[in-house]
């Protein structure tokens, strides 16, 4: 395969993407082939040492944001009259189903973040209480004597410890939530791309 037909194949697979995105991605692959040729390979060798046009196209699509993939997917579908009628008649069925699935996914994601947020509130409360404990301790040593001072100081220390412990939990949960979000985006994208290949 020569360079032109290699790039043409990728271009064909990316047909439904906006031209700007498509050409920018293609320029990267074209540059790499040119650099291989400059490095001493023949054009055929250079193209053979690249991955297949299908793999390249899939990687480019996976890198696109979801709205662009949806748009591309809609643009790519050429529907016959029967399909359109079915789509319209089936609307009361598929639309609520689709909406439910999307909202369900979003809800799971939000619940995880709510957990992170409430844990954060706990850390804040513990931290503020610890500060209050220190202030109380200072007040007690002036006004009330040693036993109450020790009590307040001890409470402040315990609260600080708890705040630090919960702080670790918040950071861990936050990381998990971010990872979950990324995994969900990847899943949705590969769903969109797989359907595109079938079409």
């Amino acid at each position, binding site marked *: 395969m020569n360079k032109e037909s290699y790039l043409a194949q990728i271009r064909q697979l990316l047909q439904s993407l906006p031209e700007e995105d498509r050409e920018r991605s293609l320029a990267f692959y074209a*540059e790499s082939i040119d650099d291989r040729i400059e490095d001493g390979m023949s054009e055929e060798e250079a193209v053979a040492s690249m991955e297949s046009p299908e793999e390249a196209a899939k990687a480019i699509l996976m890198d696109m944001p979801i709205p662009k993939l949806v748009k591309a997917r809609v643009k790519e579908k050429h529907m016959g009259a029967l399909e359109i009628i079915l789509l319209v008649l089936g609307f009361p069925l598929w639309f609520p189903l689709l909406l439910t699935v999307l909202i369900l996914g979003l809800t799971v994601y939000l619940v995880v973040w709510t957990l992170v947020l409430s844990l954060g509130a706990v850390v804040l409360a513990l931290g503020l209480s610890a500060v209050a404990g220190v202030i109380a301790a200072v007040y007690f040593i002036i006004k009330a004597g040693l036993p109450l001072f020790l009590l307040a100081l001890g409470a402040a220390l315990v609260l600080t410890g708890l705040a630090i412990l919960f702080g670790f939990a918040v950071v861990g949960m936050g990381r998990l939530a971010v*990872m979950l979000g990324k995994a969900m985006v990847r899943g949705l994208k590969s769903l969109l791309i797989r359907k595109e290949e079938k079409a």
Partner: protein
Amino acid sequence: MDIQLKRGMLDACVLAAIQDGESYGYQMLKDMKPYVELSESTLYPILRRLEGAKCLTVRTAEHNGRLRKYYAITPLGLARLEDFKREWKELLSIYRFVTKEGHE
């Protein structure tokens, strides 16, 4: 390997490939080859992501009558690389403990 972990490592590889001066796609792949073999399809999204995160900058220049993109690391990218090295130092010391013979 854990996908998140690998992704972080490849980001660091790409940043390391330009830490001593700007470079271009194919040269970066060649420099990394003895250590990790990447394809264009792996490199391209990483470069875009790192550019978006302001860890590197891109400029287009003419070379032998065609255009070539050159990538240069930013202070933010250098900081990211330092973070990576520090984290792995810790992980390596854990690894040494885990693989040590005869600990109780």
